[in-house]
């Protein structure tokens, strides 16, 4: 995997934290034989691991769509939003070709989709381990707003936006 490309801006230290967090999730994905793993933070940002593909960072709603979980969106969102200050919440959903297990531990959530229903216990264990060990913060940085867009620049960009 090309971590440099993914996180080219990172300092060495945060880069290695990310690598570690990424490999923890990828290990879990492999151990479980999961088709999808997803980590999401409560600011609505998610990192989607689907099979062998490079992890993709996107908005949580978009990630659920990309993972083919749109139909379960409401359920998942409700589980995730939980009650403020509430502790961990584990949820298992049975779908036609497998299981979806979700561990919400605000402000983060881990979700796995896998086929082998006999691995439910393992899934719970792995997700719990991710919640406690995985430095998800390093994966879903909520970068401070050092950047700003000038209004003049915006006007310029907007002028070029419309169809004639």
């Amino acid at each position: 995997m090309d971590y440099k490309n993914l996180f080219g801006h990172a300092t060495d230290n945060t880069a290695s934290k990310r690598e570690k967090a990424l490999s923890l999730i990828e290990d879990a994905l492999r151990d479980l034989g999961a088709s999808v793993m997803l980590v999401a933070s409560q600011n609505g940002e998610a990192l989607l691991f689907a099979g062998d593909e490079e992890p993709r960072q996107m908005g949580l709603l978009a990630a659920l769509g990309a993972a083919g979980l749109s139909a379960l969106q409401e359920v998942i969102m409700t589980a995730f939003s939980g009650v403020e200050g509430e502790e961990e919440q584990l949820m298992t959903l049975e779908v036609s070709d497998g299981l979806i297990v979700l561990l919400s531990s605000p402000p983060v959530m881990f979700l796995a989709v896998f086929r082998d229903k006999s691995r439910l216990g393992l899934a719970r264990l792995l997700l719990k381990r991710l919640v406690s060990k995985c430095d998800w913060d390093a994966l879903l940085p909520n970068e401070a707003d050092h950047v700003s867009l000038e209004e003049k620049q915006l006007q310029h960009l907007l002028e070029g936006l419309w169809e004639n």
Partner: protein
Amino acid sequence: MRIRWATKDLLIKIVYYGPPLAGKTTNLQKLQELIPSSRRSDLVSLDTEGDRTLFFDLMEVSLGKIGGLTPRVSVYTVPGQPRYKRVREVVLRGADGIVFVADSAADRLRENLAIWYEMLNYMKAMRLCDSPVLLQMNKQDLPNSLRPSQMQGLFKRPGKEVPSIAAEAFQGKGVKETFSQILSLVVSGGRKS
């Protein structure tokens, strides 16, 4: 605004909020017509009950390139029905700017205001009080619609101006202006009104 470093995107999240059938999805449909397809994603709509938004609509608009970054606007709508309160809350999270689409029909006023205050409560809980809210007074074409001057004073935000725009979204009137103005408000930090 945040940066997604992997792709050097400058992310701006805009949410169209409001009661059911006020015209939120229509706004996005018109934006889709007004913005060339090379500059936007397809409109993802998850509606399964006629023309009502269930869950949300989503479209991403790419504004071009500036200083090595690509400003990308994610535009969401929320489902207006009372039972989707939680979904509204989740979609609203992290919004840089909000367009409140009000149905100007006089008999929908109470419903508009109820969801307006719900939104303000969520914004307070999520510390979004600095995010600008633009009021779009839609369906101005309806014979029983309230005039802009009648509506403006009714939608209040503590300590903040509420800029507003009159619209007839299904005719495309005010759609472009609304989108441009909410982005200006986001970029200017809400100073302009």
